[in-house]
């Protein structure tokens, strides 16, 4: 999978490494900004109130 992505990136090894880094950062950004905030309330780790 990652090998496939690597082979399909343009440029030489340095350019590919740079693009990979940008892609990784983009994925982390999307996770932190959208995916995790969405997933968090669905997981039972952070309820602090007493409630019925």
């Amino acid at each position: 999978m990652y090998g496939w992505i690597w082979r399909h990136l343009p440029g030489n090894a340095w350019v590919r490494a740079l693009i990979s880094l940008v892609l990784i950062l983009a994925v982390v950004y999307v996770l932190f900004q959208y995916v995790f905030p969405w997933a968090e309330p669905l997981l039972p780790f952070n309820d602090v109130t007493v409630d019925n």
Partner: protein
Amino acid sequence: MAATTDQDERTEGSTPTDPPRPRGRGRIATAVSVFGELLITAGLVLGLFVVYSLWWTNVVADREAKKQGDRVRDYWADGPGSLNTKDGIGFLHVPSMTGGEILVKKGTATKTLNNGVAGYYTKPVKSALPRDKTGNFSLAAHRDGHGAKFHRIDKIEKGDPIVFESRDKWYVYKVYKTLPETSKYNVRVLDPIPKESGAKKPGRYITLTTCTPVYTSKYRYVVWGKLERVEKVDHDRTPPPELG
């Protein structure tokens, strides 16, 4: 198809003496390696989620709490005016738990608490406010993540002060009972007279609730205090000796 490309690429950089890989293995090997990579990816994502929960949400919440707290202080500095419950009603100081101040806002909705503040209950049992003649001022805040304002609640001991700072009063409470573990459905801890703490008659109580053990929300940790005295805020906002 994928297997052949894979092989072509792999042999490109290696020495010509390498024996060609057997053809039949290619497809299965690819499937296994993709599966393995997916597992590694899942592991990394879970690791990132931990980083997010325990670090990043604190960064975001502390920033937001600071902003909202500054707004309340600015608003107070402007002179007399009505109590603004939307921005926050005051600050909680618990020296044995945290050196910082905790902004207190109305309600215990996730959205409110996620901003690194403590919220006073509006349901299931409506909280009293410190200025009320009697009642229970009941608060909740996060134990981990989102500011983790009550993270060190277990450091609070009997006799420790809890001070609530409003615009013109210091309300000095004294802890008289802690309950390290109770059911999350135990709403009676919020009662105006919290009988579970041993209280018998109406008074001015404060209740702090958060989740326990750390990093989970299985049970609730409860700390009760009783009002000792009320001090007027002076011109310089000199804190009471308990915060010295």
